[in-house]
């Protein structure tokens, strides 16, 4: 796919025999890495495998105990990040290393502040524009804006620009996609592709295997501080090969679920344990409704910024609600604070582990019992009574009980921390458990055990609400998915009916569907019929958008819902999908369907128009021309 990099492989960096010991843990034991100019090199491994440490050794953040790094034919001796930067090596970190109070421009040229000579803002501004143009994003970043106001994706762009500003030959991306939405990831990959073509060597550290296949040319896999597979061609590998190397054993399907759980009708019956109606908490949550049953895992899907976390916070009493009702087991509740929500039996695990969930200076045990502290009424801390339960839980989660007293939570890997947090809430025996991005920054091995825990929790009758930007995870784990976009819940579908493409279309911001809606409006009004946009999959369909003119006949579709074609009033037209209008046999309706394909041949489903067959039937060619005009407008 990227033959360019293999035409003239020129080795740019070779690290051999790198050892590093922190306190007692041996983070690296004879690690090796070899990179070429013009390649994207995946660096993989479970959490704690040492890939971050190796990245930091190369970028000068960590000084190794032993080992040799040869960069561009010379032994590289870096005593500081400064040395690495001067040599031409930069790192784009997981937690961004930007100064939030400085402007975009100043952050891009932050290293310039440490160099001799005068500061010429005009020249820097010029250079910043050139850099962003090289990345194809010259209009995306206002140079004078303070970085604190930027989105995660924009911050990352600043970081990449910062690396490029130093004329670096090697850029390490440490989990760059962790906080990006799918379209932002796509854009990042475009940038990485450009950099690769410019001859930069890129290291891509990630947990997400599908991304590794999408962008890397070669991969190096680490386990327990050692390089277990060096510089394999990505094209020669399968997903299970990668997992085997990373974990050291076969894992099976990580979303192990029973066939019965896959039934699309599952979760369509029974009372809702938690029901949310018309929830509004401006500005991010506009109109959100969903319900979740006991024993069910409900996924909240959507792009970053769609208002999913904010909706969860509003339910949990962390955010004032303007409108809407919350019903728990049939009783309306209105928690004004987390304490009240917990008292009602709602548990919430926010997204940001470090800042919202962990008290790093307390022991694991105290972290575990923290939520209990709020719920327990009594003068002492009452830890004793809960200790037995805590120990049982730890065992179930595969956490070694002897580490309960470990003084510092931060010595645990991200996955372990997440397990402790989940355990904390399980100790309170909640009726509803809401998790916001529970596997963000968690390696694949720990992920599958978190999935198993969630499934077990649900099977005990808890209603689980899972917020995730990882569509694959949502589809694999949730029984049903409610899609949010621009603060509104717009679809409620069994996950068995969905795939990543459909989810992406559903999750698209409503604002960007404006052109589509305008087209439907126009067609519907011109021909006094019902215009719609549907995805069709064998005998089922999902209606993405529907505009009905006043007095027009109804095709029997509902926006945001999946249905069997036989359930609609236009089943014949939907089954046949012919070029012209198709009349139904049982109702006086005629329908034309036009496929939506963009110039590159991607399929976006069908645009349809249903009219009363007793009226004059418009020209099918005309409709087709209008749809094609929309698609070629890009």
């Amino acid at each position, binding site marked *: 796919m990227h033959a360019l990099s293999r035409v003239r492989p020129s080795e740019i960096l070779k690290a051999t025999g790198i050892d590093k010991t922190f306190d007692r843990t041996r983070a690296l034991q004879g690690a090796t890495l070899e990179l070429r100019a013009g390649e994207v090199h995946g660096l993989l491994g479970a959490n704690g495998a040492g890939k971050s440490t190796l990245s930091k050794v190369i970028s000068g953040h960590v000084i190794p105990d032993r080992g040799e790094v040869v960069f561009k034919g010379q032994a590289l001796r870096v005593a500081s990040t400064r040395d690495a930067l001067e040599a031409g090596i930069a790192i784009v970190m997981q937690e961004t290393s930007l100064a939030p109070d400085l402007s975009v421009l100043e952050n891009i040229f932050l290293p310039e*502040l440490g160099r001799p000579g005068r500061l010429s803002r005009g020249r820097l501004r010029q250079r910043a524009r050139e850099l962003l143009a090289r990345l194809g994003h010259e209009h995306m970043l206002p140079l004078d804006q303070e970085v604190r106001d930027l989105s995660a994706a924009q911050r990352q762009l600043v970081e990449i620009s910062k690396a490029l500003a130093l004329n670096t030959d090697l850029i390490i991306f440490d989990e760059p996609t962790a906080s990006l939405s799918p379209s932002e990831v796509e854009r990042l990959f475009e940038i990485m592709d450009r950099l690769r073509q410019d001859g930069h060597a890129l290291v891509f550290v990630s947990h997400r295997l599908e991304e590794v296949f999408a962008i890397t040319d070669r991969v190096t896999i680490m386990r327990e501080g050692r390089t277990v597979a060096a510089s394999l061609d990505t094209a020669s590998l399968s997903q299970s090969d990668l997992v085997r190397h990373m974990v050291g054993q076969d894992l099976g399907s990580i979303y192990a679920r029973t066939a019965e759980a896959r039934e699309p009708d599952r979760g369509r019956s029974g009372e809702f344990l938690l029901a949310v109606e018309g929830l509004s908490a401006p500005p991010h949550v506009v109109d959100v409704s969903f319900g979740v049953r006991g024993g069910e895992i409900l996924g909240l899907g959507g792009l970053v910024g769609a208002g999913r976390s904010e909706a969860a916070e509003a339910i949990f009493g962390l955010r004032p609600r303007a409108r809407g009702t919350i019903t728990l087991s049939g009783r309306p509740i209105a928690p004004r604070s987390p304490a009240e929500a917990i008292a009602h039996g709602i548990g919430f695990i926010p997204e940001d582990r470090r800042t919202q969930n962990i008290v790093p200076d307390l022991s694991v045990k105290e972290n575990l019992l923290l939520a209990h502290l709020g719920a327990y009424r009594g003068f002492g801390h009452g830890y004793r009574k809960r200790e037995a339960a805590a120990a049982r839980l730890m065992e179930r989660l595969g956490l070694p009980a002897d580490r309960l007293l470990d003084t510092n939570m931060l010595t645990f890997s991200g996955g372990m921390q997440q397990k402790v947090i989940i355990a904390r809430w399980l100790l309170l025996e909640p009726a509803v458990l809401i998790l916001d991005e529970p596997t963000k920054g968690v390696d694949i091995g720990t992920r599958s055990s978190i999935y198993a825990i969630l499934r077990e929790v649900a099977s005990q009758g808890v209603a689980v609400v899972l917020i995730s930007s990882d569509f694959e995870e949502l589809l694999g784990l949730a029984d049903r998915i409610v899609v949010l976009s621009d603060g509104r819940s717009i679809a409620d579908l069994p996950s068995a009916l969905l795939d990543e*493409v459909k989810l992406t*279309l559903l999750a698209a911001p409503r604002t960007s569907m404006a052109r589509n809606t305008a087209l439907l409006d126009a067609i519907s009004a011109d021909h006094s019929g019902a215009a719609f946009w549907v995805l069709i999959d064998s005998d089922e369909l999902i209606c993405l958008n529907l505009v009905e003119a006043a007095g027009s006949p109804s095709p029997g579709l509902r926006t945001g819902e999946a249905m069997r074609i036989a359930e609609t009033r236009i089943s014949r037209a939907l089954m046949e999908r012919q070029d012209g209008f198709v009349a139904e046999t049982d109702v006086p309706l005629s329908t034309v369907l036009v496929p939506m394909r963009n110039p590159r041949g991607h399929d*976006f489903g069908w645009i349809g128009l249903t009219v009363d067959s007793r009226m004059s039937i418009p020209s099918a060619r005309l409709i087709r021309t209008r749809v094609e005009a929309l698609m070629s407008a890009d």
Partner: protein
Amino acid sequence: MTTNDLVSSDAREPPGGSAPRRASWARRILGRLEVRMALLALLIAIALSLLSPYFLTRTNIFNILDQSVVVGIVAVGMTFVILTGGIDLSVGSVAGLCGIVLGLSLQHLPIPLAIPCAIAAGGFIGLVSGCLIAYFGLAAFVVTLGMMAIARSLSYIFSGQTAISNIPSDLSNIVYTSILGIPSNVAFLLVLYALAFAYLTYTKGGRTIYAIGSNKEAARAAGLSVLFYSTLPYVISGALSAVAVTFSIAQLLSADPLMGNMLELDAIAAVVIGGASLYGGRGSIVGTLIGVLIMVMIRNGLNLMGVSPFWQGSAIGAIIILALLVERLVSVRAKR
């Protein structure tokens, strides 16, 4: 994720577009804390001029500026320190000690040599504090608290517990010489603020100080001299404390070991009223100037109205807390 071709990704900007942006220019200007605080200062000035006919006279305005000099000079150094996320509690005591150093030096040295001696002493104390904080990672609050006690104690010891009153009267020239119709101490203050503003806004060193306060790890990773620029603000703060007390002594022609008592509180209050964050990274020298003026105007107005000095502390404290409370409420609403 090829499906994104259809859902044009540019539409990810928050809905609204350019129309509300144009309408909110007023909000954007008001969004700047300095502007809001300047309006507050104006409001206070108007209120005081209504309460006291004497407030807006030329003499009193020069009075206010004159009273701003000492706390204003110290507040500049404090701004540097607070921008890095530190704090300097020792400025008042250092001013007292440097006053004694100046008084003693003047017994043996001519004025142009004695003043640099005092400033060097202040800078040296700042250097010690700064090194302890930057290189050894001690908490700024504790180090400068200790330094505050040491400096005050030394000023009593060096002075023999009494004021040094035989100061050569020529020293008062640094205050009363007129430069373009402006008293020299006020002129010095204005030049100092202009220099500090230029340094913090336009130079690499100034921006490094902001970067350190905003994200120290980022500054370190970018290869900035974090240690040097974390120390420098304390040196500046110490040296400026000495400069401030020099102007004070020039007016009183006496050096008292108690000089500068509680000066640190006025200076910190002025910087914080001016919009600086005690966590570092946020704040500006213009804001500090406004903060100083607000502090001095209130004190001056209370004096004019004949409010008992014992009540003045309560009044000033209440106004500071009230100003920050209103500011917090306003900025929370602005974010909504």
